[in-house]
């Protein structure tokens, strides 16, 4: 009579599962190009915004908004730098994978929670000076050809839209951080058993 561990250890092995070093190198190249592609998409988004703002400034479309526009460009550049720093300079070492399962997953979750919880500082706050300045300039513009009531309504709409957008971004990050916190707590309970 065969015991269950013997059955387990004698199970047939995949016939085509042999992996050579050249397979590994192909995968390593694919891994690197996937990271480059993901980072490239993030950089492209931010650089498109920078290019658009710079173009508007250079065309002198609204000279009033030049200074806050430059602040927004600086914010985009700061975010690009943060993305680069967080994804390249602090890339995870391969041997992190060799930590005990609970420690590895807690560390992974803590790293993600750190990025989410701190997003207001590195992703939201940099845009605020330029945005608030732009909104203030618009609020004090009072165009002659727009009735005051309509002008106030438009300004209110712009402020509420900006608030809604950035609050949504902040809530999305905070919600993700809170969910990660719950999972970290579960791992802590397991670790303490």
């Amino acid at each position, binding site marked *: 009579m065969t015991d269950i561990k013997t059955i387990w250890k004698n199970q047939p092995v995949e016939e085509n*599962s042999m992996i050579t070093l050249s397979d590994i190198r192909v995968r390593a190249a694919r891994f690197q190009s996937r990271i480059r592609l993901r980072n490239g998409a993030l950089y492209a988004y931010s650089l498109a915004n920078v290019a658009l703002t710079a173009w508007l400034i250079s065309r002198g479309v609204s000279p009033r908004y030049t200074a806050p526009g430059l602040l927004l460009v600086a914010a985009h550049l700061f975010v690009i730098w943060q993305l680069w720093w967080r994804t390249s300079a602090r890339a995870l070492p391969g041997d992190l994978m060799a930590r005990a399962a609970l420690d590895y997953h807690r560390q992974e979750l803590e790293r993600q929670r750190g990025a989410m919880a701190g997003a207001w500082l590195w992703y939201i706050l940099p845009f605020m000076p330029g945005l608030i300045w732009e909104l203030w300039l618009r609020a004090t513009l009072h165009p002659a050809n727009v009735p005051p009531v309509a002008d106030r309504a438009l300004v209110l709409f712009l402020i509420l839209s900006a608030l809604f957008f950035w609050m949504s971004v902040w809530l999305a990050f905070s919600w993700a951080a809170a969910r990660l916190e719950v999972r970290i707590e579960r791992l802590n309970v397991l670790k303490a058993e």
Partner: protein
Amino acid sequence: MGHGMDARRQDDLYLKASAEYGPALDRLARAYEADPSLRLDLLQDIHFALWRSFSGFAEQCSLRTWVYRVAHNVGISGRKRRRRLQLINLEDMDQLPADGTPEEDVHSTQTLARLHALIRALKSPDGQVMLLYLEDMDAGAIGEITGLSARAVATRIHRIKALLARNFRQGECS
């Protein structure tokens, strides 16, 4: 020069680990992934992560512990990414009725299929403990790989034995 030697050492360690633990990694991938093409993908992910990890291997632990840690971490991460199954704890598994009346002549293929299903249904780290138990590891080694305390591993092994006894023929569970 140093970099070249490091790369050579990394390759050598990987080849050694692959030769020694290849079949165990294959079993692990089978336990984590039912779909054959996803399984092969997972197995390649494990081998790749293992190769990458050896750039930082300085004998902090045994080669076996290192290999199993990497493999399980990749397995768990892959499972999280690939699907959202309703996973359960060992305690809850105890409450479930056994999978039909254990037949006298259960074929080993069916036994394996049921074992795989059990492991896939278990939450982390219960599934990992069961897998390592089946690989014939003792509580100390399982604790080193999973990060659980010896007491927590012992409790889980006790439950696993009971679970296996309920689901498989007496002779198979010795």
